[in-house]
């Protein structure tokens, strides 16, 4: 059954995720290439001095990419289910409704994680020849909350999309905006690192919010 759900989700979202995945990895490639071009054009000395004295990561072009890709992914995956009332059919399958939606969300998170890991690795390897470990690690640490915001943004978007009542949906969007803002408070390299566990827990916990929307949907609540 799980395999069938994953397959169904793949059929539904493959075009989006292939394009969005290429886009996200493409941005990571561009950020890496940009650093390499700076190294070539400005010189390694200037580049190192910049990182040591300016507290900047030079990869802020990536900042909102994981979030945008994730929100798009959640909408592409769940909005048709709501519009075409397919979710009602899915929930009538002889399988636990929570597990069904959970599997759908697991699929989305897994694909986003894959894109994030590939993008992160691209970034890591693109810098390895030109920058020392200390600078590289600070730049990579800067990107961690951005990738995490993607997962969190996906889970919050699912929560919003699954909500059948528009009034509640608007309140959920407002709350989600503030929750997402927590991942973008500062772009200082490494600033999130000591307390990144809080944001990991927050991201994991947002997965349970969809249960509320699902419950409202099952109870047939409407505007």
């Amino acid at each position, binding site marked *: 059954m799980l395999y069938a759900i994953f397959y169904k989700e793949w059929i539904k979202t493959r075009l989006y995720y292939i394009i969005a995945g290429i886009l996200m990895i493409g941005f990571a490639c561009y950020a890496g290439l940009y650093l390499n071009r700076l190294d070539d054009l400005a010189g*390694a*000395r200037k*580049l*190192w*001095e910049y*990182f*040591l*004295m300016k*507290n900047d990561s030079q990869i802020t072009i990536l900042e909102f990419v994981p979030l945008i890709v994730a929100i798009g992914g959640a909408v592409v995956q769940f909005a048709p289910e709501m519009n075409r009332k397919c979710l009602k059919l899915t929930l009538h399958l002889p399988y636990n409704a*929570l597990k069904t939606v959970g599997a759908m969300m697991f699929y989305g998170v897994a694909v986003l994680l894959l894109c994030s890991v590939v993008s992160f690795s691209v970034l890591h390897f693109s810098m390895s*020849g*030109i*920058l*020392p470990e*200390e*600078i590289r690690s*600070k730049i990579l640490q800067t990107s961690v909350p951005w990738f995490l915001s993607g997962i969190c943004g996906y889970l919050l978007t699912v929560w919003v999309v699954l909500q059948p009542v528009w009034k509640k949906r608007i309140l959920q969007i407002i*709350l989600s905006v*503030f*929750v997402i803002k*927590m991942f973008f*408070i*500062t772009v*200082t*390299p*490494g*600033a*999130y690192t*000591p*307390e990144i566990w*809080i944001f990991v827990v927050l991201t994991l*916990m947002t997965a*349970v*919010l*969809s*249960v*509320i929307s699902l*419950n409202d949907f099952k109870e047939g609540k409407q505007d």
Partner: protein
Amino acid sequence: MVKTAKIFLWFLIAVVCLWQLPYIWNFLSAKQQTTPFVLYSSVAGDFTIRRSVDNNSSWALVTGEKLTRPEYDSLLPEYFAKQLASENRLPDTILSKPVSLKFLTDENISFRIKPEALFGPSIPLYQMLEGASGRVDLEMPPDVFRITDSKMEFINKDDNKVNEDKSTLFTEALKNADFAFPAAEVAGNPTVKKKYDNGFLIVDSKERLFNLKMVKGNPVLKRISVPLGITPKHCLVTEFNGKHSLGLFFDTKNCLYVIALPDNRVLKVEIPPVDLLEEEMTVMGNAFTWTIRIKNDEKITWYAVDSQDFKLLKTYTETSGESYLKGLSFEKNGWIDLGWR
């Protein structure tokens, strides 16, 4: 499951409210703050205050005695030497000491220490400038160094490779001076916007203080003798034009000390301990006195100390006047640090 989800939802709502509502309140209720500019006058033997309200300035002594702008300038000849010289009012002597325009301007110093500069995120790589390159202007070095658990390592910026010869040379110098790896604190000013280089102040793992410089490519290492009972913690290298000090350091009790040149004597600055995590320190000094401003959320205190022996001369305090509603905050000193402030 629904109950858990609802509890988490209300938790999130509470977090967002505690974070955003005080912020919105403070944003909307904020008023223009006019922090007075206070300097100690060696001539008057007291603090002078300049206040600016709606682009109108007023000058006075802390005793309340009002001053005109020319009177104010003449009470602070160290800071307004150029203005006084242009009006032919620069005194020949201050406190019986002969002075000149060059002497006064050369001796002026100012610097600020913010908590985020000491405790904020930073990259543990340092740039050691050549102290005697033979050139008038300083140049940024072609390498950076790190201090590991067992050695000092220089990495070439051009090829990102360790310079083994230089690393061995400096590591041996440190080992010969009984330096205990790793370093607990490394402080320097890696900039060419200074007239000379005092190198780095380094605290080793046994809490001993060293000064490391590079002269013609070779390490010059000096152990700074610190009086018993003082444990250096946060250091700052000073490269003032007057060349009277090597640097400053705060000890584990947050007391401030100056390392005076030429003999690297450690002198205590007679001000109360500074809460480095919460307070901002600004120093404006001249040949005779330093005015040290310590600012926190509640008050601003100015201390006047003698610039030779750093004995306390006078103190002046004002409440900061910045009242704000506390709330949940995500950021402190450059870090993401969840707290109620």
